[in-house]
């Protein structure tokens, strides 16, 4: 009669370790892929809102830049999936040249309840110069 024997304990353990590594790596890769896809969707929505806002701030007369509200003026309904989110606009005069102002448009999202702060943000700076009231075109 042919002797029967199964796998030894070390063989089974090594096989299990290899299997565990493969499965864990696959799941981790899948989770990371999901995270990147979500972040990519967020970024595309945010930049559309920022482009729209930049179009508006490029056309506000230089003299009235400082008197504007410090939030987005465009319709931000495209950012609804990011709720809660915040928008911010900062206008700062250039230290070197008073006829140049730096308009920074910022979107903040992915709110962290514990730290009371946003985890992600995107911003775009638009440099505006005083052309004396006439347009350059």
């Amino acid at each position: 009669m042919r002797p029967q024997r199964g796998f030894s304990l070390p063989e089974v353990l090594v096989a299990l370790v290899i299997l565990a590594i493969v499965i864990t790596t696959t799941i981790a890769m899948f989770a990371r892929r999901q995270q990147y896809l979500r972040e990519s969707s967020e970024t595309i929505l945010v930049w559309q809102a920022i482009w729209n806002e930049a179009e508006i701030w490029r056309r506000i007369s230089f003299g009235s830049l400082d008197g504007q509200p410090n939030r987005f003026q465009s319709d931000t309904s495209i950012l609804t999936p990011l709720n809660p989110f915040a928008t911010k606009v900062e206008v700062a005069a250039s230290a070197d040249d008073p006829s140049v102002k730096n308009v920074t448009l910022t979107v903040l999202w992915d709110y962290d309840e514990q730290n009371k702060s946003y985890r992600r943000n995107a911003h775009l700076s638009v440099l505006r110069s005083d052309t004396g009231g006439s347009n350059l075109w």
Partner: protein
Amino acid sequence: MVRRQRGFTLVEMLVTVAIFGVFVVIIGTLTYNMYYVQQKWPINYMSHPEVGGVVARVRRDVLDSLHYPGEFEGFLQTPKTLIIYVVGQDGYAKTIIYDFRRTGEVRRLEYKSKELESTWIGRAMPTFEVGDFELDSGQVAVRLMAKDTGGKVAIDQIFFPRSHS
């Protein structure tokens, strides 16, 4: 000889079910995450080159535009039809019509005077809609929007004409 038969012990079964349970929980969590992302986020149309092509064409044409006629050659200015009167790079005036009325299709018709000069058709498109956005200064922008099949806003872009003075 009668071979002795025995099944799995209770401990073996418990360990097997526990391992199986861990896998079920992991797969369930991943599936739920995928479903959540799909429900929350709009379709990323901007990764589609043809869709990007429509957005880029509208942006360029609006930049060159002088005004938006109410009607032209039987087309009416509606949320599904955009009519733009432009001055092209060659200095000639043209009338451009974007026709978003057909599902999944965008047509760009370019007229020089009343002659149809060229037609561009984009297919596998989302449902576009045209609106406007007015600044306090009186400048009017074209607002191009597209929603996905779930009604979520996926594209929302405003384009202002270049100052021609």
